[in-house]
């Protein structure tokens, strides 16, 4: 389930929905900062949780280009493929 961008995106959404403060209607196109009201620290801390799941580390400069959940999934997928 975590070997495709869509699979990773679904996993991210599932993890996000475990937090009651996150709006219920999010999807892959939701913007992490604007739609989820995450500040930069919250984004970094959330990414740490997914890193463990996928056994990758996301360098901070990569986070700068990420706006949506799908962007994040794409980035994680690229790292996972490179690492495999």
């Amino acid at each position, binding site marked *: 389930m975590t070997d495709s961008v869509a699979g990773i995106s679904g996993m991210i959404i599932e993890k996000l929905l475990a937090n009651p403060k996150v709006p219920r209607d999010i999807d892959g196109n939701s913007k992490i900062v604007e739609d989820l009201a995450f500040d930069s620290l919250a984004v970094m801390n959330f990414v740490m949780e997914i890193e463990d799941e996928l*056994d990758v580390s996301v*360098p901070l400069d990569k986070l700068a280009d990420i706006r949506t959940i799908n962007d994040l999934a794409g980035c994680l997928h690229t790292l996972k493929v490179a690492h495999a």
Partner: protein
Amino acid sequence: MTDIFAKHQGLREAYEGLTAASPRNPFEVVIERPISASVGIIEGRETLLFGTNNYLGLSQSKKAIEAAVETAETMGVGTTGSRIANGTFGLHRKLEAKLAEFFRRKHCMVFSTGYQANLGTISALVNKDDVLLLDADSHASIYDGAKLSGAQVIRFRHNDPVDLEKRLARLKDHTGAKLIIAEGIYSMTGNVAPLDKFVDIKTRHGAYLMADEAHSFGVLGAHGRGVAEMQGCEDGIDFVVGTFSKSLGTVGGYCVTNHDGVDLMRLCSRPYMFTASLPPEIIAATMAALEDMQARPELRTKLQENAARLHAGLQKVGLKTGEHVSPVVAVTLETVDQAVGFWNALLENGVYVNLSLPPATPDNRPLLRCSVMAAHSPEEIDRAVAVFGEVARHFGL
């Protein structure tokens, strides 16, 4: 024309929300003047200072004051130049030699602030081909140095050797240099880093290790060399960075190391080169404060006793503090409104502490950051604890 300040709208709203709910602006506290290390005049009242970084009380050291006055009278008040041009006086060299000797290291570079020591050391040591592994709760100066360096930045979980090792293992095919950075004592929570464990890990994985002992220099270790000395792992720490602005009570920063390669850092570290060097009276005061600190190890003993007294006292009145007994004791509260109310009430009752709000705090909760000094008397600590207890009861905590 695009409004250049439009980007601050979110910040403005947060700021206005916060200041509207607070009888005074927490970012604009004025200490009209200190009357001793532990007492200052705030809003016309004598106020107990429990939110400084003056751990040994040396900002008021007689010897440091005399050294500053005498040096200002004989050498003037500034250098007007960079360390690599006209800004190195004999005194700068002397302080570097003294610090190298104190830390038992071959080399020392002095910077104009601790912030610049981090910026200047990190940005000179690594570049885009390298990887930095930073403790997630690192100080802003470490994050900023990382940005300036252009290196890849990977965060590991706060004080977590297992997480660090996992991340290093993922980097096993990386060809660039790897630099791990951790602090000694964390400034917001008082947590102490497991530097000894990080040394084991860096050795196994062929990485370098830098420790920022800003809050532990002069505070921990039998001689005050910090957490690395306390944990007996100094040989495994490649670079130690720190500041004079806390235990020594002046201003400025340093990096000490045994690596000969740092000689050239003086010619490529931009935060070292492109700023004026410290004024001579500051260097003289810093040297005198360092001598004072070495001559009076009892200050460290007193500080530890005071830390234990404050920590136990705050726990006894039912407040939530960190587990480490260190000179920084953070009281964790749940909501920002509660923290702002609590902080104002403390100040109105004569106790100043630091109000620390997310995102500058580790886990998104507000903190009342208290710090203790060797200069506090037991009565002053008990008084502060009593005020904390009264305010907590008032707020139903």
